[in-house]
């Protein structure tokens, strides 16, 4: 490893310096925000946009759960219900889960954690926000003027021939937001390659940066294929030529191949940054070096590469060839190994650490628990025999919500609570945040565990009505969803409250070792007075002489 100059974690963080000149009070007025090229301000712009999208998607989810309280779908009629779950899917996937951690926490902290003053292409960074807003405007306009009822998967020939809702504006909006993802991915890859501080070798990069780098690889290589697949559907709707239309010689499965070539790597775009955050939180709050740094770092890259080989496990029953289904099944098991490595390494990191129960750690432990269950049920779906039964049922809904909501959103909450003092210079109330973590965890378990049982019973997804005997489990799930909604509203309240009334947080409230903690909170526009020279690895919480190489 590297020659290590001793970094003794300060026992008590230094008294918070009075807020001097920082990126927030460097300039005022709307122009300074809307034309900024400072990666920190762009991150705040994204934070506001993405949070709005999250609550819009959440509103759709609440209506869906309310409608499913009774088996006869009495809240909304079938068409509205179809539009609701499509809106929930489109908004949550493309306008919240895919962008959230890279554009909010990644934009803000990637340059700071590698000792750079800004991303490689600041203007491109601002352009990516405007492209994102433009895409979101298209999609929201399509939803307000009548919605779209194809499901977020837009399967042809339904989306290209028989759906008469505004499919084209929604698809345009998503393709445009795809270019925003490509721009962010490009920015991150070039920044990590070209702008690390002197001495910061790849072996000393924080794991959050490794996971953002892996996510950017997927963003760059998967999103173009989505743009092409959705554009072909637009072309087919406009010109009535049968690319995917079987009566004109096309094949609906080709759309599914192109769509899932993006959409499976996309689920790793959503969860990988969350894994990076959890690696930061576990090490900081257990005050201990990560267990197996190289394995955890290269597991992210492994996931990024292997995630491109597995997409057709979404099409096992869709009529693909038996042999190709078997190839994809065995590859799907290969992609599960790096995730397993990460979970075991996090658990081993806690061993003989000094664990402090702060809010971010509660979110991180919640992530590990729920992500493990989500990943394990993924193994069910990779088995051909099992997927035959549970495909397109509520088992699948529970599986991906365990990973998306239990994993990504929980990790995002953890990261937000971990870096909030650095972003705003204010501490949030400790008690309320721990309560929020608990409520979210309990609400989540109550919402999605019953859905595994519903799934195996065979209740299909996207059903406006269902057989009466499934009602009790659905009511349980809807009850859990209301607790979950409360859990998500709490942070919105006390985080905004902390902006005004939170007591000022010093440069390093958690005693963490990252480069970003060696700047005042909130940091100045140029992050570092002079580019820092890095001489030690990322998680040096223990003094040198205590080194024990286990086994």
């Amino acid at each position, binding site marked *: 490893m590297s020659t290590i100059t001793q970094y003794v974690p300060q026992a008590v963080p230094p008294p918070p310096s009075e807020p001097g000149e920082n990126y927030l009070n460097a300039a005022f007025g709307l122009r300074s925000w809307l034309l900024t090229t400072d990666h920190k301000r762009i991150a705040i712009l994204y934070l506001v946009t993405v949070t709005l999208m999250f609550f819009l998607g959440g509103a759709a989810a609440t209506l869906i759960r309310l409608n499913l309280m009774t088996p006869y779908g009495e809240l909304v009629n079938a068409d509205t219900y179809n539009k609701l779950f499509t809106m929930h899917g489109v908004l949550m996937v493309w306008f919240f889960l895919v962008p959230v951690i890279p554009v909010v926490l990644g934009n803000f902290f990637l340059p700071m954690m590698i000792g750079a003053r800004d991303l490689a292409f600041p203007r491109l960074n601002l352009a990516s926000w405007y492209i994102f807003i433009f895409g979101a405007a298209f999609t929201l306009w399509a939803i307000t003027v009548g919605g779209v009822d194809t499901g977020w998967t837009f399967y042809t*020939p339904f989306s290209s021939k028989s759906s008469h809702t505004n499919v084209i504006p929604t698809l345009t909006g998503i393709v445009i937001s795809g270019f925003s993802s490509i721009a962010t991915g490009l920015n991150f890859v070039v920044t990590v390659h070209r702008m690390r501080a002197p001495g910061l070798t790849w072996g000393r990069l924080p794991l959050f940066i490794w996971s953002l780098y892996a996510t950017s690889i997927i963003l760059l290589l998967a999103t173009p294929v989505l743009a092409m697949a959705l554009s072909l559907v637009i072309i087919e709707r406009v010109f009535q030529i049968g690319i995917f239309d079987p009566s004109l010689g096309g094949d609906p499965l080709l759309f599914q191949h192109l769509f899932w070539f993006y959409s499976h790597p996309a689920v790793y775009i959503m969860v990988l940054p969350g894994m990076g955050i959890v690696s930061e939180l576990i090490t900081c709050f257990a*005050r201990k070096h990560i267990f197996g740094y190289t394995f955890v770092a290269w597991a992210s890259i492994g996931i990024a590469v292997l995630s491109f080989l597995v997409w057709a496990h979404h099409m096992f*029953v869709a009529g693909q060839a038996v042999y190709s289904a078997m190839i994809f099944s065995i590859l799907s098991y290969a992609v599960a190994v790096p995730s397993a490595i990460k979970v075991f390494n996090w658990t*081993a990191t806690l061993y003989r650490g000094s664990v402090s129960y702060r809010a971010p750690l509660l979110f991180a432990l919640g992530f*590990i628990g729920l992500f493990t269950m989500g990943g394990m049920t993924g193994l069910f779906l990779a088995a051909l025999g*099992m997927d*035959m039964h549970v495909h397109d049922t509520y088992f699948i809904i529970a599986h991906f919500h365990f990973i998306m909501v239990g994993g990504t959103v929980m990790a995002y909450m953890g990261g937000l609570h971990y870096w909030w003092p650095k972003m705003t210079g204010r501490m949030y109330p400790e008690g309320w945040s721990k309560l929020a973590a608990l409520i979210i965890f309990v609400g989540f378990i109550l919402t999605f565990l019953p859905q595994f*049982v519903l799934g195996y019973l065979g209740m299909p997804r996207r059903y406006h009505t269902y057989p009466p005997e499934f009602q009790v489990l659905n009511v349980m799930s809807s009850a859990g969803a209301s607790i979950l909604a409360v859990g998500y509203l709490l942070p919105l309240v006390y985080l905004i409250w902390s902006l005004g009334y939170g007591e000022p947080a010093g440069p390093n409230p958690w005693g963490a070792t990252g480069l970003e903690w060696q700047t005042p909170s909130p940091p100045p526009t140029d992050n570092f007075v002079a580019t820092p020279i890095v001489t030690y690895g990322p998680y040096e919480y223990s003094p040198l002489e205590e*080194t024990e190489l*286990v086994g």
Partner: protein
Amino acid sequence: MVAEVPLFPEQASTIAGRVDGLLYFLVAVTGSVTLLVTVLILYFAVKYRRRSDGDRTPRILGSFRLELFWTVTPLFFFLVMFYWGASIYNDVSRPPDGAPEVYVVGKQWMWKIQHPDGQREINELHLPVGRPVKLILTSEDVIHDFFVPAFRTKVDVIPGRYVTTWFHPTRVGTYHLFCSQYCGTNHAGMVGSVVVMGEQDYDDWLAGTRAEGSLALQGRKLFLKLQCDTCHSPGPHQRAPLLENLYGSTVHLEDGGTVTADDAYIRESILYPEAKVVQGWRPIMPTFKGQLADKGSELTEEEALIQLAAFIRTLEPGQTPVRTESFPAPVGAPTRPKGKEPASVVVPERPPGREEPP
């Protein structure tokens, strides 16, 4: 009230037992590992909680052997899971030979089911217990999915193509039938039931249900109504290959390729005649796409194709129906009782380009 809350679906087919076996194995393996991880985390979090801010922790960087262990062990379990799942999938994708075939046509928001003996049902499928049945499915418009939770199998029904699946019901009862691929407004309404009956009850049901002639007979009427016999029958004016003994045989094509004459080939040749032209014949057949459906008897295009295919399948040498009058027979009028040899028909020697069926 609680007693009525089902927590586990009934097992009503041979496959169901095997899928449940795989479920128990998966739950056991993943459950124990998840439990282990959770217990370890909680134990470490409590045992090594922070007592004072100045706690000193050991600098453990990792251990290669431990990493190797939790890379290889999961891989081993994954391979077992893969093999178990793949073997079930393998059996489901190979229907037993000789199982009776039921045709299913998915149409936006209903299932139209046709039994070989002519019974037609909507959203209902009656099956005899203990006897495997093979389903040949297609869709009229968008992708649907024929899903019977009690049989633990589903198959996406794709327009423009035949897909097949099979069941071997083992328990009498009425089970849910769902459409589990989103297909539009009434996707949730496209449900029905599969009724598995005892041997005797099934035969009574078969006899009791009104069926205007078997699938093949309806195909024969359609064959005459569409005047296919003007070209596809022996005699001086024959301008198209005879369809006798066609089903299952290997057909030599004009461009040198060969194809097995199955349902898909017959369906494609009716809709796109120029796609696979038989060797030695000219591509003069017009497409019948769009002309098969008959609003009167709510016969959809896919059902007409199924009936024609069923009829062609039963054609033995010399049985091509001979038109006894110049104007087309009205629908339903028997032109000639099946099986009796008309005196005037001469059995031609084998036309070029066709081998004996395998």
